[in-house]
């Protein structure tokens, strides 16, 4: 019976993967999507180029035209590339920073503007002076940084429109050699080889939008011709196809929906006990985790490197870790609460990774030299981030515990068992973080010549570890009760946020500089932390009975 329910849940989850069925339809443009382009230090399918560049300019993979028709990124990109519409007038460029829009005399209510509108506004004056300041190494104001972002979008768009120099022509012999565009093809090949290719390209330009059904066949011809130029250098069709599929199926987007679904199933199960859909919920959750893992493995094979090398990947990895650790504990203790705490956290992390491409850049770029060719990277970083995931799970459980203290302080048995569950997770976190820090030390011994050097990232990982050790030891001498441990699970997670995100974005100092970035996201994070601390305060007020007259403080529960 359990197995049946589990399988029902699992199948339900896999159904989400399959739906909508339209995603499996092969598009007419498919042969064009798998053309290889050498850009930003690697060879990738044109599909990826289109997705990245349209997202960068438009901030979304879909473009709603003036007539209300929604166009996907790939046709949009082709239309730009073939310069097939009057792109000068299309309101395509994302410009979202209001104060700057007002300053340059554009309608602050609008989100997208045409190239023409932007270039004839006051914006060029601002980004020109910003560029000048930037080249002199001066600090830029927020307005100037935003102006530069929009200027970059404009430049990118100009570069795509009618671009005959897209590096589609492979190098004749060197696997790492520089590819060129159609115009420069003769530098590598005979005119006899290049002429038919250029003709195909030209006629594709002509028929685009008119006889799109023929475009596929021509694209396929073009692809074959390009591959034949240099079969050794041109990437294998499977590789290109795999990356196109990876983007199209959008595993991480499906995974978070499944996590939410599993969460809802579990909550319903708790409310209507007679339903008993526990195993069904687990099934859905497993489906989500499976899809996410598959996505992660696919990404690893496409990029050809360890799983966690930048902020985006670490957020996705933490989502995976939270779900995986929770599932493991769930299978051991059957407590329901692991899943309840993990599902929203994992979903939230994935949504975050999906929705902030400016801060968490999902594109696959070559690694910086320090991270290359490295065994330690593939074990040190995943271990550390897995410990962050465990502490995130503990944080989720801490919220549930404090929620009980706030809304149902009399459910002592529940609180006690929850505290026990939480303690197990904290143990895993402490073990993983200790191991991760030590592995980092061993890597540092090889890379930087010393085991420990008080680099800010090292120091903060240690601070995070110590700030969990303090309550864990305090608990042994009775200084912290179950309530105190609940508070600690929530509050100490701030040290993890600081070690994980803060060192890179707030301090911006030290040897781990390959992870640094700016995004203006500090305020959002700080306010989230602030709201969370208010919640802790509310729970504390209730628990200690600071403002209550008659209600006596809840007595200490027995130690775990």
């Amino acid at each position, binding site marked *: 019976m359990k197995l049946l329910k589990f399988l029902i849940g699992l199948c339900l989850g896999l159904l989400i993967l399959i739906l909508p069925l339209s995603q499996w339809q092969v598009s007419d443009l498919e042969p064009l999507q798998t053309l290889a382009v050498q850009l930003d*230090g*690697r060879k990738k399918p044109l599909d990826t180029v289109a997705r990245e560049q349209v997202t960068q300019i438009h901030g979304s993979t879909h473009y709603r035209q003036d007539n209300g028709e929604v166009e996907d990124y790939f046709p949009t990109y082709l239309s730009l590339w073939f310069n097939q519409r009057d792109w000068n007038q299309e309101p395509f460029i994302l410009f979202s920073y209001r104060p700057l829009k007002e300053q340059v005399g554009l309608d602050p209510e609008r989100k997208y503007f045409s190239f023409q509108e932007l270039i004839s506004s006051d914006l060029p004056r601002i980004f020109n002076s910003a560029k000048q300041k930037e080249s002199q190494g001066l600090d830029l104001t927020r307005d100037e940084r935003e102006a530069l972002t929009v200027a970059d979008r404009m430049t990118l768009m100009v570069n795509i429109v009618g671009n005959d120099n897209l590096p589609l022509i492979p190098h004749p012999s060197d696997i790492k050699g520089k590819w060129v565009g159609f115009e420069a093809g003769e530098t590598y090949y005979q005119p006899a080889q290049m002429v038919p290719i250029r003709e195909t390209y030209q006629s594709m330009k002509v028929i685009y939008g008119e006889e799109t059904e023929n475009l596929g066949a021509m694209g396929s011809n073009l692809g074959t011709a390009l591959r034949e130029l240099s079969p050794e250098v041109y990437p294998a069709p499977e590789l290109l196809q795999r990356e196109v599929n990876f983007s199209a199926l959008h595993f991480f987007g499906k995974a978070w929906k499944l996590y939410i679904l599993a969460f809802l199933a579990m909550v319903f199960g708790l409310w209507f006990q007679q339903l008993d859909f526990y195993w069904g919920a687990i099934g859905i959750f497993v489906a989500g985790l499976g899809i996410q893992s598959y996505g992660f493995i696919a990404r690893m094979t496409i990029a050809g490197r360890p799983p966690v090398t930048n902020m985006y990947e670490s957020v996705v990895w933490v989502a995976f870790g939270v779900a995986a650790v929770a599932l493991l504990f769930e299978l051991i203790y059957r407590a329901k609460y692991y899943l309840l705490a993990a599902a929203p956290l994992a979903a939230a992390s994935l949504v975050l990774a999906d929705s902030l491409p400016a801060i968490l850049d999902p594109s696959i770029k070559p690694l910086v030299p320090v991270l290359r060719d490295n065994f330690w990277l593939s074990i040190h970083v995943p271990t550390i981030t897995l410990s962050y995931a465990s502490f995130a799970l503990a944080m989720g459980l801490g919220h549930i515990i404090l929620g009980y203290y706030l809304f149902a302080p009399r459910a002592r048995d529940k609180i006690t068992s929850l505290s026990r569950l939480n303690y197990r997770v904290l143990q895993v976190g402490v073990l993983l973080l200790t*191991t991760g820090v030590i592995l980092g030390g*061993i890597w540092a011994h090889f890379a930087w010549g*010393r085991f*420990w050097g008080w680099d800010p990232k090292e120091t903060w990982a240690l601070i995070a570890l110590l700030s969990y050790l303090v309550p864990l030891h305090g608990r042994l001498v009775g200084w912290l009760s179950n309530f105190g441990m609940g508070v600690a699970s929530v509050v100490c997670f701030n040290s993890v946020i600081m070690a994980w995100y803060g060192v890179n974005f707030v*301090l911006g100092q030290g040897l781990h500089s390959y992870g640094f970035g700016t995004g203006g996201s500090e305020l959002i994070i700080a306010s989230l932390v602030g709201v969370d601390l208010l919640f802790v305060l509310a729970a504390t007020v209730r628990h200690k009975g600071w403002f209550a007259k008659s209600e006596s403080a809840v007595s200490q529960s027995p130690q775990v």
Partner: protein
Amino acid sequence: MYERIFRFLGSIKLAVPLLTVIIGILIWGTFYEAKVGSATVQYEVYKSPWFDALMFLLALNLAVAALSRYPWRGPRKIGFAIAHLGIIVIIAGSAAVIHLGVEGVIPLRTDSGLNNEIRVEGDFLEVMDPQGKISQADLFIKPNGSVNVNQVGGISLIGYTNNAIETIKFVEAGTANNLAVRLSFHSNNMGQNLETWLAQAPEEYHKVGIGPTELELVTVANETELKEAISPPSEENPYPWGQLKITSSEGEIGDIPVKENLAQNLTLEDNIQIKIINFWPDFQIDENRQPITLSPLVRNPVIQLEIEAPEGRERMFLFGRGDFAPIRYLVSGEAISSLQLNYEVQLQPTEDYFRVITTPTGELYYAAHSSKGFKSGSLEIGTPTTPGWADFQITLEEVIPHGRPQPQVVPVNNPQIQGIPALLVKTEEKTKTWLPWGEAKTIPTPEGEAFAAFGPKLIQLPFQIALEDFIIDRNEGDDSIAMWTSKIRIEDPEQGIVTQRNVWMNHPTWYKGWKIAQASWDPNDLQQSTLQVKREPVWVTSLTWSGSAFIVLGIIIMFYAPSLNNSQ
């Protein structure tokens, strides 16, 4: 009583506050580091004695805690003991890494040979007193300029500047006549205060340029010369771009003013065609090997011309300044040997100048020129004059009739002047001397001369390293850097070993316990590579590694062995 102290030392009641204090210090430390930089925090916090003391207290707490709970019965206690003793080992190991390791960088170039001197963090002061006794000290200079040492070998360290320049001052020697004057410049609007010396000798103090202006000490022989020197300059130069003079064997045949005849075809004596193609008032060759002019001022005028005579046709560059021979290119025929070409031009005097004029009787006058016109008058010590350059005031500060130049180091406040660091020291006799970075200096004392050298802290390696090649790999089809590799040669004359190694990111090479790793490189100079050289004793490495293993093992046993036991 002792037992209570002992028990407290090993208690959680000590551990928790201690850890809390450490957390607080570390948090503060990372933020402080973002403000003042890593070197200062390393010196003031992580390598400081009080931080060591804190770590020692933690280790003591752990040791007493672990040992006082002996015998360790059951897996939980065993795990606890292993983990906590492991932490002690790792604290000891990490402290040893920080305190006992030797670490430095060695700059290498492909076009220079072997090097065995590594530059270690921090600076160094060496003092040799008149008796030949040598004292040394490692210095740490904080960003605010304070120095960690007060006294080395009888001299006191009383100040530091990171921007000093080496100049000359003149002192009265009482022998040969050599007038030297010290002038000060002051501008309120620009917030500048400058001083400079002018002297009859040496040559370079005769005329000194400050920005666009020129200062000069002019010696006049008589009243007439003085009158001329303090009168406004005469009328305009009739040939501002100079004249081209052409002579043949019969004598001068042409006298061509350049400005009026630029780009004109001129015919001389029926059979000679000449055309001045180009004129550069302030000639220079730019990085693309193209002639350009630096300014519109006639400072280094050059003309390019084409000349055709019966023998042939030639193009040439003629220089108005110095004794540069013309550069000639034959276009057709044979070289023109019958004609002599001379380019004569009067160099444009600097628009802004300030001249100090001295007469045989020792009187001083000044003559100044600026965009506002000409000014002159007599010059007296302490009375400011205004030459007309913005709100600058020039004051004669000092006059030394028999000046002898003496080198000196002075700190400068002007950030536009790129100076070097310098250390201010004081002898017991209160003689103050600035020691420039990277140079030895003599300090006069009553017993004789002492020597002091302030400079980088260097260590000699027992072997030598040469950079044979520096290779950069770029990402495919892109200019971004994928990896850089230094191909080095290590020579060990004592052992007679010569070995070739490659060093790249994450892949250091080891030689006799020294780790050699890629540290940095200069994108603008690909012949240069800086390597990090480091050594730590083997027992230190083994301490940290075994400590690491103990901790992880201990935690696993402590957390999970009891439940394994229970389930059995």
